[in-house]
């Protein structure tokens, strides 16, 4: 479970986060919606303790990432728009590296890599070096890396972007399976269809503030708009949505 309360962060004169509060529950997939520049990346980085907040509280399973960032990170799978692949390493070597960084090793790690590769349907690229991988292959490798150490929490930034239909399905199935296992998944996305199909909760942030939190149906009810996309635009504020 990830709980954030009134989290603020300022860079010089720029207020990146002006008060973000939300709760992401275990066994839920929580969508993080917000226009570009709303502060999603800053929020994710603050959650893993890479940035220090100016105000408010954050608890990941009760642990403050500022207090013990290593414990929090060991329990989080982190996938941002930076995939972080190494061209001169094969996928298996790459996954082994990050597995070891997360304290795994030996036959347990080898078995886990095989399992994750099967789950994401990426056996074919397991022994290849990542030079020349397609966008879809890259994102699969990055996702595999995020899932590898069986984190209880997943912070994913647009995990299905650039994927073909098959891969998108594979990723969605994997996420659904993780939800069944009781993981807490926070997913930033711009695909409304994905939100309505997959997500249990939605957090809408705009200009560094939480604008709304609830189930997709809640949001539609609150705005009085049946279509989630239109409801989102209303919540963000039409002008702001377009300007940002």
């Amino acid at each position, binding site marked *: 479970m990830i709980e954030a309360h009134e989290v603020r962060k300022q*860079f010089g004169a720029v207020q990146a986060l002006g008060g973000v509060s939300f709760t992401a529950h275990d066994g839920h997939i929580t969508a993080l919606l917000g226009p570009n520049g709303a502060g999603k990346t800053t929020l994710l*980085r603050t959650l*893993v303790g*890479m*940035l*220090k907040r100016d105000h408010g509280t954050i608890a990941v399973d009760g642990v403050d990432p500022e207090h013990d*960032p*290593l*414990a929090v*990170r*060991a329990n*989080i799978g*982190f996938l*941002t728009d*930076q*995939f*972080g*692949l*190494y*061209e*001169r*390493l094969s996928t298996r*070597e790459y996954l082994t*590296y*990050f597995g*070891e*960084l*997360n*304290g795994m090793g030996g036959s347990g790690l080898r078995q886990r890599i095989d399992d994750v590769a099967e789950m994401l349907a990426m056996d074919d690229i397991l022994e290849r070096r990542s030079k020349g991988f397609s966008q879809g292959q890259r994102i699969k490798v*990055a996702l595999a*890396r995020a899932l590898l150490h069986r984190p209880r929490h997943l912070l994913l930034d647009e995990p299905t972007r650039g994927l073909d239909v098959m891969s998108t399905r594979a990723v969605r199935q994997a996420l659904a399976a993780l939800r069944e296992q009781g993981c807490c998944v926070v997913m930033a996305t711009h695909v409304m269809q994905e939100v309505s199909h997959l997500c249990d909760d939605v957090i809408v942030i705009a200009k560094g503030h939480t604008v709304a939190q609830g189930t997709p149906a809640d949001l539609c009810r609150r705005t009085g708009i049946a279509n989630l996309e239109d409801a989102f635009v209303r919540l963000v504020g039409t002008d702001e949505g377009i300007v940002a």
Partner: protein
Amino acid sequence: MTSKFRIVFRKELRESLRDRRSLGLLALFTLMYPLLLGVLLHQWIDRATRPEREGIVLAVIGGAQAPTLMAQLKQKNITVHDTPPLDEAAIGDLLRAHKAAAVLRLPGKYAADYAAMRPARIELWYDSSTEQDGRRDVEDVLNAYGSNIAGARLLAHGVSPAALSPVQVQRYDTGTTAARSAGVIGGILGFLFFPAFICGLSAAVDSTAGERERRSLEVLMAQPVRTWELVAGKWLAAALLAIVGITLELMLAHAILSWMPLEEIGMSWRVSWGRLLLVCLASVPLSLFAAGMQIAVAMNARSFKEAQSVLSIVMLVPMLPGLAVSMLELKTASWMYLVPMLSNQTLLRETAKGGDIGFLPFVLTFLCSALAAWAAVAFAVWRMKSERYVLAV
């Protein structure tokens, strides 16, 4: 839990060893550099040991008109080749082919002019782009011959030839080939340590600026790894390449230098393998410092190219004290062992002389670079921890 810097270290090393660019630099500087030094020294020695004036070959056209001059040339160890008349192009070819140092042509009316006491023209042909010292010797002989004749003619008129030379110049050259070469070679020895800054460069840049450029650093920084473990792993991987490079290079240079007759050019290389290993050991922190500095600088660059262009300037800084000392011709002093790079150069130079310099210089050389390395790595860790750096990643 074991420290994770070893995991980072292993991965960076494996990646570097798969990089042809970094391996290429390593091979180039460990092999090419000592070999180049060997070839250069060989040429110096060759020039220094070549006997003086081992016979200048002079082609002469129409030499029969001046038998006395020919005899004098032969006396001065100049080999005279009588040559049939040649035109300008043929003379040029002759000189280009190095068949003669110069060509002396006596025009047909030489004998007549000489007998009539008119200035008798002698043509000296030479190629200034390829000529060696030979031409000057010929000119000296011609001048001496001319003054002799002039003296004899004046004497015949009752004038002392001494009246013609109010001043007599006697030249003394105190410079020896050895002294001239010693300075140059001292500089070359100093450059033996430069590979410490080259061999690990590619790995250091690739694991910092390169990782930023490929957008993988954020992921790495979000792992449950302490910042110092990340930096230490990357630093040691780059440093290991530099250490291996410089050690191999020094050993190869040692093998080449011990084999060459350096005494011929006034240089000495009285170094045992034991001493050499001590020098290598004392130079390990230099590689650590080089890698640490490169990491600390390169991590601030956004791309491989940017890091390389900045580092190519920064890398010259450690060379400056050595250059300054050799330009100001300072005598070896203890403080020189306190400056990284300069300390290594001084240590090698003093060791090469073969005297006993005690252990203090080795210890100082080791410590000063180790301290600088520690400072560079501490800076890199501090910088990577800073929020501004995280934002820029």
